[in-house]
Each structure stands twice: as structure tokens, then as C-alpha cells.
């Protein structure tokens, strides 16, 4: 893939390149190429040129059918100054997507020497092609991914992590809010203040809803909506996140899970009156 014979693409070549870029995965099979340029010789020439300049990369699947992957112009621009090794490393980092790749894995995949890899990574980082991302699960690992890719949830740890550390205060404030929502729904209104102060120690203990007219215990979806309305946080919380919080409350013995009401969808949580 030398860049020695530099000339702009001719018409046939650019047609092929455009056609490849237009496909979903930037790939073009030999058959498709044949459809675009029926003439055998012209097609062969065009493909060869594209391959030599680096606009195409040859691929072959298990069955042995040949396909080409198109490389966009800007992409080519950024990588054209790189050495072969750097390209190899970059390719692996690229395929790792938003999960990133650990340098150790990179080493086994590329079969390069550690020093070489280190050097490659250094230049690539300097060129702002890749970046190092911290991982919540493995804080000590050096993990790299392409610049401009948002790290996946498994790396950042979702909404519970702030600067790679579990944000316990944030979690605590949210669980408290959840608890309050559930408590308000589980106990009759006018006696609640009494209960909040003295707990069950009051004269007759708290008054309760009778079981036949039990209140509509909130589902996790309702709790999510209530939290949204309360504007406690800017972070988007999914149902799963809310359920994690509620599970913590269940573990603390503050609430308990009740089978979903009449229609049987969604999970309800009801208050576990006093940590019994």
C-alpha cells in the first residue's frame, strides 16, 4: 500500500469506491463489483489501483469468496502517515468498538513486542487517534479505544459511578427518595407524621390501610417517573437502575416486594413497615 503512485481516482475507480461506501458495512463483494464494471480487464485494473492506494482492503470469508472493504478518504488521510505496525494496532483498537481493548490482549492479538506496541500507542495517542479509557471493573488495566467513541456502560459502570468511583452519596440520596415515595404510598396520610417521629412506639402504633382496600403500591416505573418529576438528578435512570436501588432497600429491610396487583404486570414494592 505504498503511496508512491499518487494520482486521483479515475471515473471507474471512484464509482466502485462510492458503491462500496454506500453499502451498509462498507463492503463490496466481487460479484457486486462485476455488476458495476462488467469489463474484466478494466475491473481488475481499477480494483488493483484501489487496493494499492489503500482505498480498498481485501477480505475473504470462510467459503473463500473475496470481498473488498472501502476506506473513506478522511480515514485514509489520517492513517496514511502511519507505519504498518501502527496501522495494525489501530485496526485492533478500532474493532474493539466502545468496549476498548486491553494492552495485554493487544499484544497477544498482534504478536508484536511490548516495546513496539508501547511506541505505537504513544504515537497514536499523540495524533489523537486513540485515547486511554479508565475501567470501573479493572481500574489497573490500560484500555484503549478510538478517539470520539463513547465508552460502554460496562467500562463506566453506568450512572452509579462518578470519576470511576462508586458514588455512594448519590446512591444514598436516591434510595432515600425512593423510600419516601413508597412510604408515602403505603401509609395513610394523616397519621404519617406521627409514625415518622416516634415509629411504632406511639400510642397505638401507626394506623394502617385495611387489606381489602390496600393502597396502590408504586411500581418501579411509577417510582422512576416520580424521581424524574422531583428532578433529583440530570442522569437518566432506567427501570433497571431503579430496581437496583429498590433491591438495596429490600436488603436493608426497609421495604418488601409484593406481587404485582390485579393485572399482574410490573413489580410493586410496598413498605416493610418497621425493620422486622
Amino acid at each position, binding site marked *: 500500500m505504498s503511496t508512491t503512485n499518487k494520482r486521483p481516482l479515475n471515473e471507474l475507480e471512484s464509482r466502485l469506491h462510492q458503491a462500496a461506501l454506500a453499502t451498509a458495512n462498507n463492503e463490496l463483494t466481487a460479484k457486486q463489483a462485476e455488476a458495476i464494471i462488467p469489463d474484466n480487464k478494466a475491473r481488475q485494473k481499477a480494483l488493483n489501483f484501489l487496493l494499492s492506494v489503500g482505498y480498498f482492503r481485501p477480505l475473504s470469508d470462510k467459503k473463500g469468496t473475496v470481498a473488498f472493504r472501502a476506506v473513506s478518504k478522511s480515514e485514509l488521510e489520517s492513517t496514511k502517515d502511519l507505519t504498518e505496525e501502527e496501522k495494525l494496532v489501530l485496526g485492533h483498537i478500532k474493532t474493539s468498538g466502545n468496549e476498548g481493548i486491553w494492552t495485554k490482549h493487544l499484544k497477544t492479538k498482534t504478536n508484536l513486542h511490548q516495546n513496539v506496541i508501547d511506541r505505537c500507542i504513544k504515537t497514536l495517542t499523540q495524533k489523537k487517534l486513540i485515547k486511554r479509557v479508565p475501567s470501573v471493573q479493572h481500574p489497573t488495566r490500560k484500555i484503549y479505544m478510538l478517539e470520539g467513541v463513547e465508552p460502554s456502560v460496562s467500562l463506566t459502570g453506568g450512572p*452509579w459511578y462518578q470519576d470511576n*468511583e*462508586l458514588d*455512594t452519596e448519590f*446512591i444514598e440520596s436516591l434510595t432515600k427518595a425512593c423510600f419516601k415515595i413508597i412510604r408515602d404510598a403505603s401509609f*395513610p396520610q394523616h*397519621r404519617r407524621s406521627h409514625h415518622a417521629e416516634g415509629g*411504632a412506639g406511639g*400510642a*397505638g*402504633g*401507626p*394506623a*394502617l*390501610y*385495611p*387489606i*381489602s*382496600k*390496600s393502597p396502590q403500591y408504586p411500581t418501579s416505573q411509577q417510582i422512576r417517573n416520580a424521581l424524574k418529576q422531583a428532578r433529583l438528578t440530570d442522569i437518566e435512570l432506567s427501570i433497571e437502575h431503579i430496581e*437496583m*436501588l429498590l*433491591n*438495596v432497600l429490600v*436488603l*436493608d*429491610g426497609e421495604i*418488601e*416486594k*409484593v*406481587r404485582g396487583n390485579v393485572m399482574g404486570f410490573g413489580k410493586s414494592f*410496598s413498605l416493610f*413497615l*418497621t*425493620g*422486622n
Partner: protein
Amino acid sequence: MSDELCTKIILQHFGPLTATVANALLTRGRLTFPQLLRYTQLKPRTLRSCLLVLIQHNVLWHTTHPDDGAEVVEFNVDECLVRLRFGTFVCLAESILGNPAGEIVQIILDHGKLTPPQIFHHLGVTPSNAKIKLRYTQALHQLVSSRYLKPSTVLSHISPKDKLIQYESEEKAKISGFPTARQLREAKETARGRLKQEEKEAEKIGLKKKPQPQAKTSKRKTMSDMSQDDTVVDDTVYFRVNPEKFAIHLRNELIEKAARERFNEGAALVVRAILKLTENNQFDVSEVKTDPISISNITLHLSSPSDEEKLSSGLIFSSSSSKKISNSTCIKEYIGMLSSADNPTSQGSAAKFLSTTRASSGRGGGGGKIQVEFDVIIRRLRRRVLESVAREKYGTEGLRIVRLLLDEGKMDEKQIAKSTLMPPQSIRPLLTSLSSDSLVSTYPVPKTSDRNPTRTFYLWYVDLATAYSTILDKMYKTLFNIYARREEERESGANGMVKKVLEKREREDVREAEERRETWLRENAWLGEAAMKGAEEGLLSEWEREVLSEWARKEEKLTVLETRVQEGVFILKDLGRVFGTGTGSLEEE
């Protein structure tokens, strides 16, 4: 740990000589008389009377050694620990059956075991005063017939362990081939059942039923002529207090309290009513359920206005402002709540107090009958002790981990961190300290077949049996510490002044003077401050009174503490018998 506590109890209840005997027996196991002589270095006569006292108070078992036929004595730890609860027994007897019963129980506790004539003698009841005698006889009859007192039999003085071993080996001999673990367990169970049956039989004979002579032992030949509803108390039988029967009251109180904490006063009232109505048929804390009882019966029991008020005030009906909700509706609501009718999951059924039997005998409408689920409740009570220990020592974080492991079984660190939403670096030290208290244990899962520790996963889980027995041990330690502290306060509190003042207060003249002062103050309470000034000096100085009241305050604090720890011990030990074990040890869960 319970050994040291037992020695302390004996020391407090019987004095230093018996305490040395108890200590020797506790540290060295069963001993013959000559051996005891050597270890305690007491005079034979002293030792003999010590042993007599301890046997009289049911603290010692004696048995003949199976090999050489020598007589050996053994310490009965359970019986000794029950002594801590004696105060409660008297109080309970008084509140349930009235003052005479309380007095009888107290006399019996003071003397270990007594025959009815001896009881009357100690109470100072003379046959001449027929009215008083009748009252006490009735109280005694009631105590015996409802099993608050049980006859002391020959069997209750013989260590059951030998027999247990013998029966067990008999059962094991029946197993052909190599015995499986299950067969061994069954053999143990059968042996235990047989022993229990024997005990029961023996106690039945001892029970006074019908005036007809029983030629079983020479002890009982004559029968009392005081006849009440065709049974009488056998005058020749020695009676002792039956801690099991008193234990059901303690248990019922705990259950009622739990219902109050979980729900409210109304729910507690319903639970109490059911327990009260079935009380006569509860004899043992190892029962799984109460007898079934109909809702109408409960309603009838809770029909007084104050009960109704309590029941209805605990429930909020949305439209209750206009029409009055009937009492039975309220009770039904409470029963629904208590039997977790709104949560038909496994968690729900683990949290229930009551259950409904569906097999109602053809009477439609009222539905099934109600039972209290002792087994489920006690399981929860015990778990709650464990959880409160975890909370107390390791905060909510510790509690969260313990509860997670209790619910989910075995887990590794990462899973725990994920489910509890806690940072792994704070979980690790917490788990280590939890496991040092045996609240959690590790379960090794080797990656390779060589079981190399470095190639092994360690999963965390809660081993209930270990956790409970560790907690129980700690509780005994606490009780021991409370005793030691109390002793210290009495012996050398306020630079030894407490002891001196207490001794002074015991003097005849001082006591009389103080009593005079007390009555004067009581009679002239309306004078307020002036009464203080006008009062007789008494023989104690102001300062001495201060020392006394300070000491009394400390004593009270210690007693409150002791009661709380006792409650935990009761839940873990006595209620633990529900799940097997006849002799109250914790070996099986």
C-alpha cells in the same frame, strides 16, 4: 463461656462452696465422689451437703458409671441457666393465676422441689384456717393441672446422655450394611424420641390423677382427700417448676411484640387473643402451630369497647367517616394482614403470623380456622436476632450483606458488590470482619481437582448454625460480664462504701429506723419539701442514702440490660429447640 456463667450463677444463688463444686464439675465433666473430693479439696461432709443442695435444686444429674458401677455426678447446664429466669416465673404465675400461685411458685423455686404439705408448711398455712388453705390448694391444683408445676421423677435426676447413647447404638445396630448419613440422623431422632417418650410416661405417672393408689414406687401411697373435679394433687409427689410451660408465655409475649412492631396495636391485639384462647393447649415451645380457632371465637373474645376502639383506630377505611365498620370486619382485615394475604410469594409466606386452615367442617361463610404459625414466626425472630447483631456491629452495610447472603445463598465478592451497590474496596474488609464473628462463612469451590487453595474460589454464605451459636456464646459472655460488673459494684462501688452502707442498712436497728422514716414520709407526703425537713433523721446519713440510690440506679440499669440479653438467649436457645434436639443443644438446625 456458659460454664463460667453457670459458676457465677451458682455462686450467687448458693454461695462459694457450691460454686467450687460446680466449677470442678463444669471444667472436668462428670466426676465420682472421691474425685470431687480431690479436685475441690472440701471436707467430705461439706461436699456431701453441697451435692445434696445442688441435687435438690435440680442442677446436678447423677448416674452410675456404665463400666465400674461407681456413682458419678454431672452438671446440668440447661437447668442452671434457667435459674436466670426465675424472677420472671414468679411474676408470670402471679399475673396469670393470682397471688397464691405466685407464692407457691416462689416457695418451690426457693427449695428446688417440694411436696404439697411441705409447700403449705413453708407458706405458713395451717389446716385450722380452712379458708386460706382452700385458696392455696386451689392455686396448687391449677398450677399442676395446667402444668406450670411438674412432678419431679427419678428419671429427671439421671443424666439422659447415657441412655441416649445406648438407644442410639441400639438403633444403629438395626441398620444393615454401611449406614448413610440420613440413617444415622434418623437413628438419633428415634433415640431422642424414645427418651422423650419415657420422660413423658414417667411424668404422667407422677401426675396426681384420680384418687387410686399406684404401686409404681413406694413414694406415693396415700392420696390427698381434697377432691376437686375428680383429680387431686398427690401429696406425696415432689413438685418442681416446669420451665417449658412458662417459656410459652415468654414466647407469646415476644410474638405479640413482633406483631406490634410489624403492624400495629390492633394486629398485636388479634394475635394476643388467638394465643390466649389456645393457651391451655400449649405445653411446649417446640410446637409448630396453635390449635385452629374460628374467627367468631376471636371476635367474641375482643368485644369489649376498649378493644373495639383499638381495633378500629388502627385501620383507615377510605370512606369510614360516614358508617361504622363492624368489629368482625376489622378483625378479618387484621387476620388478612397477619397472614400476608396480599403477598402470596415465598417472602410473603415467610413473613406471616397466622395461617388459615381450609378444612373447615362444612360450615360455609366463615371460612377456615385460624392458627398461629410458631415455626415461621420463631424462624423469623431468630433471624432478626442475627440481623440486629449485624446491624449493631457493622451498621447498615453489614446488615445489607448478611441479608443478601441469607436470601440468595452463596455469592462471591463481586456479586455482592453489584447487588448491594457498595464499592468493592469497602466490602472486602467488611466481609473479613463479619466472618471473624462467624456471621458469614466461606465456602471453597476449587477450580482444579487438586484443591489447591490458590486455585480456589471462595464464596460467602451465612452458616446459620455457626452464626447462632457464636451469637449465643457472645450473649453468655455478656451475661457473665453483667454479673461480674454487678458484683464489682456491690463489693467495691464508691470505694467500697456501697458494701459498707448495704451492710449497715441490713442492721436491725437501722432497718427499723428507716422503716419508720419511710412511713412518716409517706403519710406526710402532702407537706412536700417540708416533710423532708420534719422527718426523723433515721440512722442513715444523707450521704449514705445517696450512695444507696446511686447503687440502686446502677443495679437497675444492669438488670434492664440483663433482661434484654436474656430475651436474645431465649430466642436463640430455648426457641431453637423447635428444630430438633431434645436436650436443647444447638448441634442441629
